[in-house]
């Protein structure tokens, strides 16, 4: 049993080291950037000493090194500091937008990966036929098209032209949800979620589909698939239980990494669909030089990405018995 724990501990150690390095890099990126961050918040008519108070309030008067020590100390206590712009704790501000990003991201990922896996199986099954090259070209188009361009076109057609879907926001004006669950159950929420999730999943679709197809083609040549056919197992069952079950392992690990990418990635979609998510908050923080907020958002996204890479490794060994180290012998 200890072989497994040793691997886990080593891996977690690596993960923490990576996170620490990222946190340090982020600290210096924001501190060395041009533009005095306080400009947006000190009213020009302030006197000198008023500006002093504010500098102290945000800890900008201390030496860079001292700031770094406080920064790391806070980080460990999960304290990400105070946002200049929203005059509120970074965690508080982020926690208000985080659910929206997670809903959008998860829905899009689920749609993209289910469609991707099914599409991958289909294309592998139709190997060599016309439909297969058409499918591949289409998938490459979905990966090559700029997200916002696709988003705007969908918006123009389904919202401006035919008014089937709303043109922005998370819910209808003035609706009050009693709880997050109530929000998740309301039809209006999904009507608002549909276009952004569709645009994001069109973009995310490419990776799982092509990866799944490639794995399927490898697996289809394996002799245990042929043996299953010889055993008279039905075509569909062979495709799913033998081929897909082995082929989809790498796709699942890719999904874990995909979650990390999607966390920070859908800035553009959030802007087009006025979706109040983490991405847009980050752009707001950057353009208002509110670097504690930008830094906090960044560390959160980076943390999720590193964690997801870690989960991807573990997931793979869980799913594939061959890799399972502590198998019952």
């Amino acid at each position: 049993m200890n072989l497994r724990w040793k691997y886990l501990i080593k891996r977690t150690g690596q993960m923490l080291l990576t996170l620490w390095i990222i946190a340090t890099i982020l600290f210096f990126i924001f501190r060395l950037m041009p533009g005095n961050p306080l400009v947006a918040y000190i009213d020009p008519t302030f006197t000198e000493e008023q500006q002093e108070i504010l500098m102290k309030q945000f800890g900008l008067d201390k030496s860079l090194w001292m700031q770094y020590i406080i920064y790391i100390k806070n980080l460990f206590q999960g304290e990400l500091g105070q946002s200049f712009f929203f005059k509120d704790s970074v965690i508080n501000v982020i926690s208000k937008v985080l659910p929206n990003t997670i809903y959008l991201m998860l829905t899009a990922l689920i749609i993209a990966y289910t469609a991707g896996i099914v599409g991958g199986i289909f294309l592998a099954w139709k190997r060599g036929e016309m439909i297969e090259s058409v499918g591949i070209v289409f998938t490459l188009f979905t990966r090559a098209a700029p997200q916002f361009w696709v988003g705007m076109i969908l918006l123009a057609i389904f919202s401006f032209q035919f008014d089937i879907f709303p043109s922005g926001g998370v819910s209808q004006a003035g609706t009050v949800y009693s709880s997050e669950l109530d929000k998740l159950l309301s039809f209006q929420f999904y009507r608002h979620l549909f276009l952004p999730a569709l645009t994001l999943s069109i973009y995310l679709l490419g990776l799982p589909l092509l990866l799944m197809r490639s794995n399927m083609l490898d697996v289809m040549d394996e002799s245990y698939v042929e043996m299953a056919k010889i055993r008279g197992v039905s075509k569909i069952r062979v495709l799913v239980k033998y081929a897909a079950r082995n082929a989809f392992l790498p796709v699942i690990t890719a999904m874990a990494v995909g979650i990390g990418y999607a966390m920070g990635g859908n800035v553009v979609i959030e802007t087009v669909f006025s979706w109040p998510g983490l991405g847009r908050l980050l752009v707001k923080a950057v353009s208002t030089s509110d670097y504690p907020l930008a830094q906090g958002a960044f560390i959160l996204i980076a943390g999720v990405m590193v964690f997801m890479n870690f989960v991807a490794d573990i997931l793979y060994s869980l799913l594939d018995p061959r890799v399972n180290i502590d198998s019952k012998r």
Partner: protein
Amino acid sequence: MSLLKVEDLKVYYETTRGTNKAVDGISFNLEESQSLGLVGESGCGKSTTVKGLVRVMSKNAFIPDGKVMFKDRNLLDLNEKEMNKIRWSDISLVPQAAMDSLNPVYTVKNQFLEVMKLKGEMSKKASLNRAKTLFKKVGLNEELLGYYPHQFSGGMKQRAVIALALALNPNLIITDEPVTALDVIVQHQILKELKGLREELNISLIMITHDISVVAQTCDQIAIMYAGKIVEKGPANEVLKKPLHPYTMGLENSFPDITKPNKKLISIEGSPPELISPPAGCRFAVRCPFSEDICFKKEPELIKINEKHYSACIHQKNLEELRAKSREVETWQKVVS
């Protein structure tokens, strides 16, 4: 009553460079609880024949014509559903690469139960007992059922796969190079067990191999394949003792025989012809020390020489002399490839 009658079976492959005539019209038949050895170099089409029989072929393979009469029903006319009924309940296969012929992400038990559930009407408990008895039969410990394929050694996996083949006590088992990947001792054990099982459950067997000595131990009938055709077939001891076709003679020389320790090993020069556009006449002519002009023009028919012994070669007389010559190294070296 003949269990299996294969008449002029052809299996071709569509490739970018033309049609590959991997199996170009072979015929043989197999009586009940009898065993037939199909012997030939790799690439002679024996594995393709098997795939043709069970009709599980790759996408670009097709069967232009020929008949496969199994219990007087032509398997080639059946649709997929009917064929599926026959697969494994009547004909089962012990695959070549036993190493990864089991689904790695499921336990062996799971794959056993799946086969029985699909075909046999047995309940889960009954099929589990069946699996356990089969494991005991092939000399495997019952607990192994719960393990994953990658936790089995080569020999253990081979036995598990044989057990799987016996699951629905089929009439015919086809084994494709069942023991090539194993060391000699384990090989001998497996073949002995196989022979015992066959007699006990009176199952007929087709053994595909390139190793003539393996066939000698286990098969009643032998058919020698070369470049997609059967060049010689007949009772095992006759074909081994008194080979009629020069290729069979060549094959015999290239295998050590425990009984004749000082026998010189002679290998046949050259390699089998390319089957996209096979040479005219006899396909072995170019490598055959006794070939004459006629051999390069007319393709010899597979004709009955005596009792049940057939050969596709023009030489039917003075075979004794040919056999003696075929044992000298010089006869084979003078063949210019």
